[in-house]
């Protein structure tokens, strides 16, 4: 039904059955007058509220969303609101990157006896939404296409890794191979300037292994499909974090995985490399030096300096060496962690909310809905049961609108909250080059800020922050209702 024009805005409330729904009842019993805009959806517990319900509402035309649960410690289910608090706070910090004003979403705690407080909360929130006015719609946004500035300085010197101990690595793999069903690595692809995954089962396979800046794929993506098998994996530092995260989440077993690691000096941003190479019929030669790669294609020489052509993630990489490994080769590189904002995120940070909405409108109109991003993601373990395509539950329609496509990206990002290691496979796999990694990076930034610098995939024993809680959250504070 349409919103009452001129009178109301669309405000959706999610209230837990035990405290806040009761608090709203108490306000009613006390005839505590409130604005009429709010529509309350009753849920058993604030912990039941998937943040995606809120995104769904906001993308579909809600002007404001209010969530209310039991006060911390008072949860009817003892801990539901603690989980909610973390998830909703992450959501609140995520919304602006989509171009949604985070003031349009608020969560709070109201007990069943706090009728007055409820009245105050509703009145204040409704007032706030009316001041903000009707929410800008993605449908109405003018597409805006913008490209991130890739002139970056890295936290460490990048290179081509040509001094890496590849022969030692091959020997180590061969020695282990009899105990393993398979070892995952890289081999040359259709030409010397591209690689594809290599699944080594025989010593001859091992000889095909290559190491260098073209090893862009994250081999960890294949790990969960080897469930129950003994499998080896060759990793760069970033890949190792995916392995650790999979271990953290119980998706692979430590005893089934053998990790071979060499320090990485950076990998190439193939999108930009391919763009520079343009159309060509044959690669004549690929030669390496310390600082970069020279490719001669159809007689024309192209020079790719690692400092100019590395993947965005490499510039801020603090884990060139694997965080977990069974066999380490080569000399580990030390990196001083420093301030680093990924280029696409920096671009979005510099935009206004409207610009961001327009930006995503433009990008999502280009999305083919091919799900390559999902298929490349090492943490996307649902695979055939992704909720993007299911009817039970049915989160999305198959309509090819920018809104549905952005909602899918949001689902992916929220499902990766506290899990995404920033390996960038989603963006790398995107055939049309949409900078979707920025959404995951914003979530990672929020998670790090809220949970004391937590980074996924560093410690196999660590509990991912959204699967845990603290009674008193150090960095999450209730906002005052003024």
């Amino acid at each position: 039904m349409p919103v009452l024009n001129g009178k109301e805005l669309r405000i959706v409330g999610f209230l837990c059955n035990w405290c806040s729904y009761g608090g709203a009842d108490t306000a009613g019993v006390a005839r505590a007058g409130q604005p009429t805009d709010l529509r309350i959806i009753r849920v058993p517990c604030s912990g039941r509220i998937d943040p995606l319900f809120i995104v769904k509402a906001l993308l579909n035309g809600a002007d404001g969303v209010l969530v209310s649960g039991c006060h911390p410690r008072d949860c009817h289910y003892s801990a539901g609101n603690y989980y909610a608090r973390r998830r909703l706070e992450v959501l609140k910090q995520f919304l602006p990157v989509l171009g949604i004003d985070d003031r349009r979403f608020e969560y709070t705690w109201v007990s069943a006896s706090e009728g007055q407080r409820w009245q105050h909360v509703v009145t204040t929130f409704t007032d706030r939404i009316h001041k903000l006015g009707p929410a800008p719609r993605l449908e109405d946004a003018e597409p805006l296409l913008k490209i991130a500035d890739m002139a970056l300085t890295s936290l460490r010197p990048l290179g081509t890794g040509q001094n890496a101990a590849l022969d030692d690595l091959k020997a180590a793999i061969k020695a282990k191979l009899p105990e393993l069903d398979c070892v995952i690595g890289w081999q040359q692809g259709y030409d010397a300037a591209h690689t594809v995954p290599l699944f080594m089962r025989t010593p001859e396979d091992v000889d095909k292994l290559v190491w260098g800046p073209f090893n862009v794929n994250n081999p960890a993506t294949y790990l969960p499909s080897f469930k129950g098998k003994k499998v080896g994996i060759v990793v760069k530092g970033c890949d190792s974090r995916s392995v650790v995260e999979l271990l953290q989440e119980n998706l692979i077993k430590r005893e089934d995985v053998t990790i071979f690691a060499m320090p990485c000096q950076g990998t190439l941003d193939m999108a930009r490399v391919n763009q520079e190479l343009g159309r060509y019929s044959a690669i004549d030669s690929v030669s390496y030096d310390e600082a970069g790669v020279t490719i001669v294609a159809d007689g024309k020489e192209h020079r790719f300096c690692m400092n100019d052509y590395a993947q965005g993630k490499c510039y801020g990489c603090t884990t060139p060496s694997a965080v977990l490994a069974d066999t380490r080769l080569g000399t580990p590189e030390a990196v001083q962690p420093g301030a680093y904002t990924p280029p696409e995120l920096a671009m979005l940070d510099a935009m206004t909310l409207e610009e961001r909405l327009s930006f995503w409108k433009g990008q999502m109109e280009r999305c083919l809905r091919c799900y390559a991003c999902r298929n490349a993601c090492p943490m996307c373990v649902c695979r055939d049961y992704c909720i993007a395509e299911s009817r039970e539950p049915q989160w999305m329609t198959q309509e090819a609108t920018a809104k549905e496509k952005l909602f899918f990206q949001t689902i992916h990002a929220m499902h990766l909250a506290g899990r995404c290691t920033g390996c960038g496979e989603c963006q790398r796999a995107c055939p049309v080059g949409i900078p979707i990694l920025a959404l995951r990076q914003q979530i990672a930034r929020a998670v790090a800020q809220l949970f004391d610098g937590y980074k996924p995939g560093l410690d196999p024993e660590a509990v991912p922050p959204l699967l845990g809680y603290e009674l008193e959250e150090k960095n999450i504070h209730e906002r005052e209702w003024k």
Partner: protein
Amino acid sequence: MRIGVFICHCGSNIAGTVDCAKVAELARAFPDVAYATDLMYSCAEPGQAAIEAAIHEHKLDGVVVASCTPRMHEPTFRRTVERAGLNRYMFEMANIREHVSWIGKDKEANTNKAAELVQIAVEKLRRDKPLSAKSFDINKRVLIIGGGVAGIQAALDCADGGVPVVLVEREATIGGKMAKLDKTFPTVDCSACILGPKMVDVAQHPNITLYAYSEVEDISGYVGNFTVKIRKRPTYVDWSKCTGCGACTEKCPSKKTPDAFNEFTGPTTAINIAFPQAIPKKAVINPEHCRQLVKGKCGVCAKVCPTGAINYEMQEEIVTEEVGCIVAATGYDLMDWTVYEEYGGGKYPDVITSLQYERLLSASGPTEGHILRPSDGKEPRNVVFIQCVGSRDRSIGRPYCSGFCCMYTAKQAVLTKDHIPDSQSYVFYMDVRAPGKMYDEFTRRAIEEYGTEYIRGRVSKIYPDGNGHLVVRGADTLMGEQVEILADLVVLAVGVEASKGSPQLAEKLRISYDSYGFFMESHVKLKPVETNTAGVFLAGVCQGVKDIPASVAQGSAAAAKVLALFARDKLENDPQIAAVDVKRCVACGKCIRCCPFGAIKEVEFRGEVKAQVIETVCQGCGVCTSTCPQGAIQLAHATDNQILAEVNALCQC
């Protein structure tokens, strides 16, 4: 689906500001709505009859009632539709009274809002499925945690009702705080004399298994079938051999062991029986002060023990018990009053707690019932009692009233006069709270017959004058003056807090607790004994401050709850719980990690690991549903699709 919608006028309560007929008319256009009408009072007999008739007449298979809050009449209408042959869960409510008609005056807006609330109820109902409860067996044994007077009462009542009881007590003897008291108000009965027989009953009752000096280590399971691990701390005395003769305590050379039972008012021996009426009357060695255990040489108690019960090698032991429900009766502790630096912060020996004073008054205490002040062992003349030390004090985070201090202070003032006739007692108070039977009369007696001087005001400072007295400087707000008393002894009515370790126990029991550690009852007025975890009940101060009669009453009440539960042969669960779609489950275990109730376990399903909900344990919170990325675990009646349908009904641009 054929849905019937009933819009209730609730007299003028709803119809006053909502056009109910209009709402019914709008509802007819909603998908699957086969019938919609408005009713004067839907919850009344005729209203319910009309709903039943409409179900039959229009062959409805689902019903929406738009009326008051579901927290009021949802059960009523569920029964109504069930009488008409529908599954009780094929019913939804729209709250158009508390959330609409009572809070807004604009009839147009209210009517529109009511219609939308009906619409989302319809959308939800369209995705409802009939649910039915499952039944399961009950293990008719009860665990009672805490052997104070509340726990004792609960244990005896359950045991008398034929229920086997497992009673776990942290200390070496049951009896709790009441066992430390000299007399009880308002009758000035001897505490040990009235509690003693009950303690003996516990020891002798064939239905009670007592684990003293033990703690609950772990609890798993659910109502009807809990598994409890109990940690028995080493006593270094084989209780099966110990006769409680006391020969060891007489000969023990470590005579300066702190005496916790006597609230550290005097020393005791390293091997010790708390007090003469202790149950079990068995000796325990304090390992921190026993010469044999600390230095490896002594062994006197082993030599003198006539039954050879001493065992210096004893280790702690974990025992497992299976029970059907649990009563928590863990009582209280005094707060750490030494935060009051203005009262000396614990530096002055003659500033003591009320519980220490009880031990000085008690014939079984360190002074054998003579009031002798700790500093010099002299009888005090001027005794000052200060109320609300650590109660009603926000500045130290203790804003609540400890409830019974007013009464025991009056009692202690009376007893002081009894013990030392030429003494004078002064009580600094803010309010005298004496609402019990014969309570106010008792405080009046303390004033009128025993000459206790009640001074209305707090005490700002206590300091030694350097001549063996304590200067107590306070206010008499009734006089509007600052006053000073030269006291020989100061007794602080120290506020109570939940006993040490309460939050940890609450986590094990999966029950809520407040910021002071008191356990949360299910409903503050109407379910004061239940918790939100089925099969866990509360008794005594662990739930909130209360005095002995209230603790005993709640102990009996908890027992009644246990007996009522066990009167049934089978239990039924609430079917609004989560279920796993095994196809979608990838066994990542995120739901298991997040479930607040431990209600999800891993199972083998056709050679693969999958999550499975333990139907009797699941409480229906839905945290798992919002945790599972692939949507493989869905909470019945609050599925993703249902909530999405509600969102979509409201937000569809």
